[in-house]
């Protein structure tokens, strides 16, 4: 009986493996949570490729194992040995070279993805631009008094294009802190619909040096200052979010959708790790070592913030959430908390006076 040539069967098997792997790769993103940051689609696309390649390798190797297990099983009463084959040098070169090429390709691709995520541009002084930039609209602190600008938050990026993109050489050395004069106009009292007049709600200048470790500005915003800076402190077993521009302190992270957010991480007791699965971002908060994450949330909603580094018995309960607001909601949240914050300060001041 004549048989179908093995090469033909191999070809068909190869085509099938390819098709199945591509299909699995494309559908693998459904294993991940929703995408809510600019980085998430990058990671997910990379994940899909990894899963696709992995599926192909899995099918080939497992397929070979199962096929050989069946085909070369010992038949009854056959006590002989198998054929003496010591190896096949070209074949061994082949199966060393192919994985090498695959992993080197993956390595180069992962460097590219990581660069796009902003992983290789940490440590650039995010505030350097402030000195040169017109106050209008670039930093959230500069726009808090102007509702119209807040609304324009999502369309904020075009205004930034006016400014020539500084080269990294220009950005790096500018450690000089941005001094008050530039931002002074902002510190005018803001009229708010509350009875008690509020003194200087904008307490601090946006002058937090960006940590050198973590995820930094992605190439699109490289050299530009973040729209919003949040200082995050991890402690057993809670996250504290402080907004230095407005001096709001919260147990949850509130960010406007589309804003370029810089999160500076610190830990007050042991190592913690800030993980937002929907953002595909994670960075340890390390005592004595400044770290940070920079991201842009792309999808309004509420997502968990998880502590990912073992920090004690109740590590599992160290959870918070990030609320990605529409710009209007964010403004509301900001104002209500600013009032609360100011009132608290007044009470404190009053108590101190007495």
């Amino acid at each position, binding site marked *: 009986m004549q048989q179908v040539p093995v090469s033909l069967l191999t070809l068909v098997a190869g085509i099938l493996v390819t098709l199945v792997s591509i299909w699995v790769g494309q559908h693998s993103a459904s*294993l991940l949570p929703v995408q809510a940051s600019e980085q998430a689609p990058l990671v997910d696309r*990379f*994940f899909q490729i990894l*899963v696709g390649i*992995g599926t192909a390798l*899995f099918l080939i190797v*497992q397929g*070979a*194992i199962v096929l*050989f*297990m069946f085909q*070369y099983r*010992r038949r009854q009463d056959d006590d*002989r*040995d*198998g*054929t*003496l*084959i*010591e*190896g*096949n040098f070209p*074949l*061994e070169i082949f*199966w*060393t070279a192919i*994985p090498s090429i695959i*992993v*080197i390709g*993956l*390595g180069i691709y*992962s*460097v590219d993805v*990581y660069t796009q*995520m902003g*992983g*290789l*541009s*940490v*440590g650039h002084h995010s505030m350097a631009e402030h000195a040169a930039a017109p106050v209008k609209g670039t930093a959230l602190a500069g726009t808090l008094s102007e509702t119209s600008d807040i609304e324009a938050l999502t369309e904020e990026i075009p205004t930034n294009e006016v400014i020539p993109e500084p080269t990294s050489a220009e950005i790096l050395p500018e450690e000089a802190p941005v001094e008050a004069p530039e931002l002074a106009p902002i510190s005018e009292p803001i009229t708010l619909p509350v009875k008690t007049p509020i003194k200087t709600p904008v307490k601090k200048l946006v002058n937090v040096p960006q940590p050198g470790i973590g995820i930094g500005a992605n190439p699109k915003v490289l050299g530009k200052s973040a729209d919003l800076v949040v200082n995050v402190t991890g402690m057993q077993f809670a996250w504290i979010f402080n907004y230095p521009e407005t001096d709001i302190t919260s147990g949850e992270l509130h960010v406007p959708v589309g804003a370029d957010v810089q999160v500076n991480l610190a830990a007050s*007791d042991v*190592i913690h790790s800030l*993980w937002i*699965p*929907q953002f595909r971002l*994670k*960075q*340890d908060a*390390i*005592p*004595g*070592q400044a*770290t940070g994450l920079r991201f842009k949330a792309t999808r309004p909603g509420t997502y968990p913030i998880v*502590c*990912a580094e*073992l920090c*004690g*018995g109740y*590590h*599992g309960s160290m959870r918070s959430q990030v609320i990605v607001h529409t710009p209007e909601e964010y403004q509301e949240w900001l104002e209500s908390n600013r009032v609360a914050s100011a009132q608290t300060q007044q009470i404190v001041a009053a108590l101190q006076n007495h």
Partner: protein
Amino acid sequence: MVKKIYLFHHRDAEYTEEETQDKNKLMTLQLPQNSPPGKKPENVVVTSHTTHHKPWKWYDYFTFNVDHKVIGIQYLVTAFAFYLIGGLMAVAMRTELATPDPDVLDPNLYNAFMTNHGTIMIFLWIVPSAIGGFGNYLVPLMIGARDMAFPKLNAIAFWLNPPAGLLLVASFFFGGSQSGWTAYPPLSLITAPIAQSLWILAIVLVGTSSILGSVNFVVTILKMKVPSMRWDQLPLFCWAILATSVLALVSTPVLASGLVLLLFDINFGTSFFKPDAGGNVVLYQHLFWFYSHPAVYLMILPVFGIMSEVIPVHSRKHIFGYKAIAYSSLAICVVGLFVWVHHMFTSGTPGWMRMFFTISTLLVAVPTGVKIFGWVATLWQGKIRYTSAMLFAIGLLSMFVLGGIGGVMLGTTPFDIHVHDSYYIVAHFHYVLFGGSVFGIYSGIYHWFPKMTGRMLNETWGRVHFALTFVGTHLTFFPMHELGLQGMPRRVAMYDPQFTAINQLCTYGAFLLAFSVIPFTINVITSWRKGEVAGDNPWNALTLEWTTASPPAVENWEELPVVTHGPYEYGLTDNHRADGFSELGVRG
């Protein structure tokens, strides 16, 4: 040229005259392994004294005994006892995780179980059983030596293990170490300090044991090989143990130094790792992982060695690509020293470092892949016998492919940032350590139990054991990938209710795994006493350990064996007859 013919063609047809003489001489030498002293054939070089030890009694196994075989069995049995203890801790944890709330265990106790489960499984089960147990038992037998190079050192190395285990048990009276097997400061500095100190002492003890054992293996393999064995006839298990030992020698002292600094920080007021006093917590992570990443190779390389022995025997086939498999062990040993930062991709590491270690991590997958392909190709054209040993070996292949692919994915920073410290990691390392190392150890036990005890294990119960373990492993660990992808962190006693269903699946799997140990344990105990008598060479294998009695005499052989063929030359001789030739077999 003659040598090539000798190796690749049927012997009788192609022998030169000289070789025929050689062959006859060698054949006579091979047969009487334990013949009475009077019947010595000529030309035998008796390299050692001929006093006869009495066989060891059961109580000899509880003493300071310098026989490598006794020490090997001591390691295996002690390690298995700790495996059961560590396993019970895992069952307690999975019971806790059946529900989202911390309702079964106190969270601190949960962390103590979690920490000690990892510590025991690594330092008191896989490492001592794979290296100490199989390494000690098999290396001298495989290379034709009467014992290890330094027998007393060997016994000392073993006897450091039980006190280490006792220290870990004792630490539970002080709350138990709760900072994970990684013991990252500052958490390890401020949590249960006495227990943490005991934990450090325990690890330093087993680390010392590992260093002493490694010195012994390196010297034994390099110096005590029987003269007639060429380097390319050294069984692959010995190559694997050699690579493992070098790796342990280079890396273990770094862990010991890190841990001793930690001990000083806890007890003597130093501040190496105290950030508020000028210390650096990330430094500890580097010291720790410089050892602990190679430690995963310490746990898998000897098991790869077991694979390279078991698969050829039970598929009646020469190992495919001997040199590739031997060199890949050494390559893993070297490259494996430069991948440790992939455990720190979300820690205090700059971007360039993350990229460098992404690439080195991906590269270390290549030699591992070469081994896997070599084993799969060994199955090809074989006559596979589905013994329990072979089932576990093939199970390992299958598991390790999954774990390895998951590991390559993890090696890339962009993806690792998302899943680092999540259940995806737990899934990955259980696939390679349970599906890999533990399957390999089981396979080794089924394979060499007849040699160690002189009796066969029951094959039916072995198959039941395999089926339960195989299903249990997938059921427990496969769903964990999805938990991690979805956002469940590892090392938690309580979790978000959305993960309940998958966690319950894992818990059922863990119960099944726990149950799977029962038929195995009963099988081992009953077979040891009443199993079918094995004979010298029940698997018809070619490595030297099968040329002596089962169990071997105290000094292994009356007369040292002479190597007449490679360790994997199935299909050559009359006993090992091939049914055909393949062009693929002939090189150059």
